Each structure stands twice: as structure tokens, then as C-alpha cells.
């Protein structure tokens, strides 16, 4: 199939392009990694080799806690955002209803609202609701990671919709129809037919939402309360330069961990391929 899409020359050119893109993306990260072993601050010339920053990082429970919080928030908010994104995309593409353009405008508006303004106004509203709850029922919800999740779902939702819609739009409706004719209810036809075909979009949307949330600072800084997420923690640390190399050590470890995931995915794929052989290969 690949031969149809590209000539050998174009293929080589694309491979070179992609490799240089990967280089472009990783050069800054490698620079950070180099300085995380540097016995000095973040400027040339390098001072000497040390593992001290890593030692400090691993003995700092606050960093580990904040990383854990960010991972939890990112995981939950991206799952919700992808779920809502799928249903919204279905409604927009497969249904006819009044006010569709207004709904799509609403879905995409969070793309543009400044996160700081959004964070502040969510904070004002949550506080007001808490105040009301406190006055009327005597208990209240308070700020925390759940509030961050709520905000992150809102800002990730348009990205998930934008990622899912183009593919859903092209998926043929025939298959869903056929499943229906064979007696599947809408949920079965979605789960057995549409969902597998939609997988590339769902995986991509999840990755986008996860990274977005994991690295989001402005909203989290207003809503996290006393449970700072990793970007919030990081930002507070940057007041004093002596903290920096330790944070670089964190970033290197995060990178190695995520590359580990990449590697594991590749190994898993190869194993599965070896075991099932051609069965896994998509039909041409």
C-alpha cells in the first residue's frame, strides 16, 4: 500500500524530513538532560559531572507528589474529554438538529478563552457555590484536583472534537447501518463497528488531551488549592536559580519514562505481530 502513496524518492525525502523533525523536537530536551548532570547552573561552560540533582529529586516527596497529581488529573480529564468529544462529534456529524452552528461555535470557543481569565472566573464561581453550600447545608466542596479536572476537560474538549470529527466524517455509515440490519442495537454497532475504526482518532485525541492537561499551568494555579500539580509546583520553584537543575533532573526522568512507554509500545507491537502474524494486518 505504501508504494501507492509515495515514490521511493518522496519516501526518502519524507523520512529525512521526519528525522530532522524528531531532531528538532529532541535537541532542547537533550540540552536539558545535559544540564541535569551539570555541577553548576544552566549556562555554558559546563562545570562538571554530578548526580546530586537526581539524588535531591528522588528524595523530594513534594516533586514526586506533584508529578503524581498531574498524572492523575491528566488521565481523568483526558478520558472525560475524549468521551464527551466522541458524543459531541457524533451529534454534529450524524444528527440534524436546530442550532447546530451555535453548538459547534460553543464547542470550539474554549480554544480561545485565555486560560488565566478562565481560571480566575472558575475560581470565583466555585468559591461562590461553596459559600452558598456552606450557608445552606453546612458543608462545601472546596478547591483541589477535582476542580482542575473540570477546567481541563473544558479546554481539552475542542481539541478532541477537532481530532475526532475529520475521521468520523469519512467513516462510511454503511457499516453501522449493516450492523443495525443484522440486529445490533446502536450501542453494539458503535462498540463493534465504529469504535474500532475510530481508534486512531481516539488515541490521538487522548494523547493531545493528556499532554495538554499534564503541562497546564494557569488554570491549575488558581484551582489546585493546596494540592499543586507539577507545573504549578515548578513555577513556584523558579524563584531561586539553585532549584533549577533539580527540576531539569525531573524533566529528564519524565522524558526517559515516556520514551520507555514508546519502547514498550513498540516491543508489544512486535510481539503481537509475531504471535498473530498476518491476522493483525489490516485488510488492504
Amino acid at each position, binding site marked *: 500500500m505504501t508504494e501507492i502513496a509515495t515514490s521511493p524518492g518522496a519516501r526518502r525525502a519524507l523520512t529525512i524530513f521526519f528525522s530532522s523533525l524528531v531532531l528538532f523536537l529532541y535537541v532542547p530536551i537533550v540540552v536539558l538532560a545535559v544540564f541535569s548532570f551539570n555541577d553548576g547552573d544552566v*549556562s*555554558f561552560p559546563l562545570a562538571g559531572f554530578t548526580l546530586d540533582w537526581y539524588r535531591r529529586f528522588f528524595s523530594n516527596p513534594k516533586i514526586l507528589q506533584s508529578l503524581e497529581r498531574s498524572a492523575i488529573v491528566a488521565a*481523568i480529564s483526558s478520558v472525560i474529554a475524549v468521551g464527551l468529544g466522541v458524543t459531541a462529534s457524533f451529534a454534529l456529524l450524524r444528527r440534524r438538529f436546530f442550532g447546530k452552528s451555535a453548538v459547534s461555535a460553543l464547542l470550539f470557543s474554549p480554544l480561545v478563552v485565555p486560560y488565566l481569565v478562565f481560571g480566575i472566573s472558575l475560581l470565583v464561581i466555585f468559591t461562590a457555590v461553596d*459559600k452558598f453550600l456552606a450557608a*445552606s447545608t453546612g458543608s462545601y466542596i472546596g478547591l483541589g*484536583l477535582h476542580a482542575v479536572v473540570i477546567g481541563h476537560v473544558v479546554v481539552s474538549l475542542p481539541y478532541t472534537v477537532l481530532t475526532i470529527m475529520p475521521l468520523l466524517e469519512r467513516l462510511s455509515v454503511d457499516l453501522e447501518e449493516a450492523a443495525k440490519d443484522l440486529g445490533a442495537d446502536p450501542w453494539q454497532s458503535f462498540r463493534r463497528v465504529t469504535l474500532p475504526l475510530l481508534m486512531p482518532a481516539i488515541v490521538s485525541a487522548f494523547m493531545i488531551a493528556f499532554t495538554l492537561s499534564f503541562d497546564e499551568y494557569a488554570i491549575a494555579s488558581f484551582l489546585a488549592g*493546596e494540592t499543586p500539580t507539577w507545573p504549578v509546583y515548578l513555577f513556584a520553584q523558579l*524563584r531561586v536559580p539553585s*532549584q533549577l537543575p533539580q527540576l531539569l533532573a525531573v524533566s529528564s526522568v519524565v522524558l526517559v519514562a515516556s520514551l520507555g512507554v514508546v519502547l514498550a509500545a513498540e516491543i508489544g507491537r512486535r510481539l503481537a505481530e509475531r504471535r498473530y502474524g498476518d491476522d493483525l494486518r489490516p485488510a488492504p
Partner: protein
Amino acid sequence: MIRAIIPARTTTRGEAVMVEKRFTREVGRRDFLRYAGYAGMSVSMAGVLAACRDADTPSGGSSGSVKASIPPIEQEPGGLQVFDWSGYGNGDYYPKEEKKFLWGQYAKATGDTPEFALFENDDSAYTKVVAGARYDVAHPCGYRYGDWVDLGVMQPWDTSLISNFPSLNPKLMAAGQFDGQQYFVPMDWGFIAPLVNLDHVDGSDETFGVLFDERYKGKIAWIDTLNMMVVAGYTLGIENPWDMSDEELAEVRDFLVSKKGLVRFYWNQSYDFWLAFKKGEVWAGYSWPDTVGYADAAGMNYLYMQPKEGRISWVCGLGLFADTENYRHAHEYANSWASKEAAEFLLAYYYYGHTNTEADPSVVPDGVRTALGLDDPTVLDEPKAHPETHIPRRSIYQQYWSEVQAA
């Protein structure tokens, strides 16, 4: 799942106490419904309105009568909530030392461990409090004290409960006084002045003008705050740069616009400035004392100017929230911060001054001590230094400053 990550503090220590603590000002149910009907909006929106109206009216009655009925410390809930910068007790930078020097005495006196909520700068701290966040104690800087007091969320300290208070420099206490009462206890202080690299910059003429000097085109760093307007005001000889008229603001704006081309960047975090200064990307910049300390430690040939217009001095200090349930705990905490040990810690580790006059400046390296003038008892007096002051026309300043930046 979401339930599980709601922080534990909502369910510990009895709901009623916590609720009291954060929302002393009642939101009447009737008000709420009235607003809801009136606005004809969704329920939550009305809640917002109610809360906002509510925030307008200062919560009075915090002094006098309340004080008489303050319960003994044993009856307070403890778990003092401190709203602060990172590295001032929460252990981010020097886990052992921060605890030992800044609140060791507090822990000894009360047996309590404070809880810290962090802010990144004065702007975001104030914004969070405006939006409804409440703690026991906060640590903003002096020029913003007036805003906090105006908001009606603070109460004055009973300085008789702070045994170290008499050791604090009385001249510097004035910044925290409103209506004759000590709403903030100023503790840490520092300067704003030009830091220059003497390998490239002529240090014979000490002036803020070095930040606007054509000779150092492309090698100058400004700060990204409204204080740049003030510094320009001093350089132009304006009488009171903290409260300029429209004409003066226009003059300052035009001056800054004409000099903007000389600037390499505006800094937001002092470490940004320090890295650029160290690497030689800039030779002169608006600087705090911490960068002086780093430059000294790195053995650079630097000068922290004593500009002829006078340095700007800043103080930060502790304020007490009006609805605190930890009144006596908070005073113990402030006492701990006001101690000689805390003062020397701030000097030695952050190169910040402290209002405790008993602190020994020799804990600071000689070079930094000279640069900051720690041995000079008049270094904080006019005309050598002007205190950083509340800017009453902040939003107007902001308009002019954005015109400078947009130019």
C-alpha cells in the same frame, strides 16, 4: 473516582469549623433568591453575583470587641494556614533550615505544624484573595498592603502578643500601619537598583539612567512590571513617581518608548535576569539583591549602584486575616518570623535584609554586605532610598505601560 481526590482537608477536623473559618460572612438565602430572581440567570451565576456584592462590603468589627473574647490558644484548631512565597518555610529550597529558623520557635511554642499555600507573585496572591481564598496568615509586599486592607479581609495585629516586635526597626513598621494600627508586620526587605557588569559598563556615574543609556544598546534588561514607569519617573526627576498625573505619565511613556530599542528583554523571574547577566547577554539591569548575591558568589566584576536618584526599597511582611480561627497561633508565627534567627537566615540564604535590628550582617559575604550597604544604618533612609509605595492609579499606569510595550 473524582470524590477520592478531593483533598482530605474538607473532611478532617469537623466540617462546621472549616466552614466557619473560610466563610465567616454569611450569604443569606433570601439574598440569594432575590438575586436569582432579579438576574433571571442560572443558579450558580446568581451565587456569583451574591458573592461579589458581598465582597464589596468590608467585614468590619475585627478589632476591639473581638479581642476581648479571644479564646486561649488551646481552644484554637491549629494547623495554621500560611499563604506565602515558596521557600519561606514550606521547605522548598532549604528543607531543614527554613523550618528551623523561620518557624522553629513557633513549633516549639505551639506544637503545631503550619500548612503552606503558595503564590508566585504579589499580583496572583492578591487576585486569589479577591476571588475568595482565605488563610490565617499571608506574606505580601508593602506596596500592596493598602489593597489588602481596603478589601476588608485583614485585621490588625496585637503587637503586644509579639514579644520580638520591639526589636524590629520602628522606621520600617510604618509601611504596615493603617488608621494607626499595625495591619502588617514588615519583615524582609531589599532594594531595587541597577546592577551592572563593570567589565563593560562605566560605573563612575551611578544612576538609574544606566538603564536608558544609548552606549549599552541591546545589553539592558528592564523588569516587566509597572515599576519601570516609576524608575523612569525618578530618572526624569518627577516629584512623586508613585502617583503621577496624566501629563507626567505621558512624559514617562514617551521617554520609555524612545528608549525601548535599547532593551534586550524585560525580565519576569529574577533567575531569568541572573542567567542573562551571567552569560553576558545583558550588562545592566533592574535588579533585586538576590542577583547581587549570585554575581558575588560567581566572582563577577559587578556594581550594585547607589543611584543618585536613590534606590527603591521594598519590604514584605505578615498580615493577619480577619476571619482567622488561629489568632494566637498566628501571633506566635509572626513572633517566630520576627526573631533574630529568622532574620539571619534570610540574610545568609537569600541576601534579603530583615527588619530585626539585632541581626548580625556578618553572616553575609563581605562583598554583598558592602554592595547592599548593610553596615550603613542610614541606607534605608531618604534620600538614599525611597520606599516602594502603593500606586493608587494602578489601572491608569497599566494603560500607559501597555502603550509602551505595544509601541
